[in-house]
């Protein structure tokens, strides 16, 4: 019995609460920036993929196929170790800053491919007549994409975009591999500490709850938004 209570002793967890909170703050910063950037990348990519210019379509397709089929760990290691360390392409001289931006870049480049494909399926839900009407009043291809097609495509795929962002938030834990210190890094450091004995299970539970506090509201928010923004036809 005493062993069981020791297993669920949240003492060590709360002793290191500051550190864990710091880790979560780093996770939130990475998630927020990557969410914005991956939406931008996905939108640009999908414009390429549906454009009338064959070269752009090919570039879009190649990008999506490469990034979607490469393990995220590899993408992030490539950014942090390959580009930042080996090739010395640094965002800043401060290691914290440069690894942060490489983590944002890698995660967004990867997630952007999924956003692109979600948007593309959204575009398929927009009736052809919408684009024809847009062209008939004199809008150019990109104007019609920006003002008529994409706004309706976005609204059609808000719920799947929510799922992609939730997956992305959880994927931030991989950034630990790319030298960016976030929740998973803190967790691993704590577990490696000789003084942090027997705190493992409470730590896992605490971190899991922490992630749910980030992802559940995201899911609810996108569900609500999808209902609110639905296009009536």
């Amino acid at each position, binding site marked *: 019995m005493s062993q069981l209570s020791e297993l669920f002793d949240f003492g060590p967890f709360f002793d290191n609460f500051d550190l864990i909170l710091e880790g979560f703050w780093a996770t939130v910063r990475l998630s927020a920036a990557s969410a914005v950037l991956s939406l931008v990348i996905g939108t640009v990519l999908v414009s390429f993929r549906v454009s009338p210019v064959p070269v752009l379509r090919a570039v879009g397709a190649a990008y999506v196929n490469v990034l979607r089929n490469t393990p995220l760990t590899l993408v992030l290691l490539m950014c942090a170790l390959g580009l930042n360390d080996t090739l010395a392409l640094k965002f800043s001289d401060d290691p914290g800053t440069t690894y942060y931006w490489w983590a944002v870049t890698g995660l967004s480049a990867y997630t952007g491919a999924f956003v692109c494909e979600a948007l593309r399926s959204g575009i398929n839900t927009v009736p052809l007549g919408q684009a*024809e009407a847009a062209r*008939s009043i*004199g809008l150019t291809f990109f104007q019609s994409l920006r003002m008529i097609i994409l706004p309706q495509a976005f609204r059609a795929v808000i719920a799947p975009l929510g799922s992609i962002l939730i997956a992305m938030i959880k994927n931030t834990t991989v950034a630990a591999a790319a030298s960016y210190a976030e929740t998973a890094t803190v967790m691993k450091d704590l577990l490696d500490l000789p003084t942090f004995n027997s705190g493992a299970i409470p730590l896992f539970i605490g971190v899991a709850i922490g992630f749910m506090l980030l992802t559940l509201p995201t899911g609810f928010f996108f569900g609500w938004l999808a209902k609110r923004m639905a296009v009536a036809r």
Partner: protein
Amino acid sequence: MTDSGGRPENVTDKEVTEVAGGPQEGDPGAAPLVVVENVNKYFGDLHVLKDINLTVNRGEVVVIIGPSGGGKSTLCRSINRLEPIDSGRILVDGKELPKEGKELARLRADVGMVFQSFNLFAHKTILENVTLGPVKVRKVPKEEAEKHAMELLDRVGIASQAQKYPAQLSGGQQQRAAIARSLAMRPKVMLFDEPTSALDPEMVNEVLDVMTELAREGMTMIVVTHEMGFARRAAQKVVFMADGQIVEENTPDEFFTNARTDRAKDFLSKILTH
């Protein structure tokens, strides 16, 4: 050359209908507004438009009629290049539409198009639907575009619906909004592809009334329709199309009472018995 569409930026609505109707735009008053010359079009192996020739004068209303699959929609769509053609020429106001790009987009707006399925922008209000083109393509200031839009919506009888979304309107109201959206671009010619065939019977007349009024005001119109009443009331010419060819051109009265070709007689006997 900022406005090679050929129309001064701030003409009023009245002037537009006069311009569309009367021969005052420079000297080519008598020159036809739309000329279709030896046009051929294929969908793969299917020869859909076979050496089509058609001339539409300023202020003229031409009704295109014919059996399903005859190429009526394709002809309409090639006039504003929604479909590319394989050979021949199509001139609008003396100019051939360029192949692609910005220039085409801008000139295309001179040809208004009304679709069978309305195609109002589903995520925009009726007012936004009508002002979008003028503001983004013609660069009309927003306030001015809204004022003009409200006048047009009033003219087609749905000013009170301006703030609603398309799905909140009846089919007839949506089609009238779509006509207002086209008119807002101050087009030189309007194409209608079966504008009433997706409507419930009780809504057909409200749309035809708007179109008849437009014709009376002198708008040049090419209308694909089987509405004989409209053709007799508003059109100067009926073009009978079948199997990708223009089989007969006639006045509405002659065509419906005394068609020259057997193909047309046969077709008319079928639609008249319904």
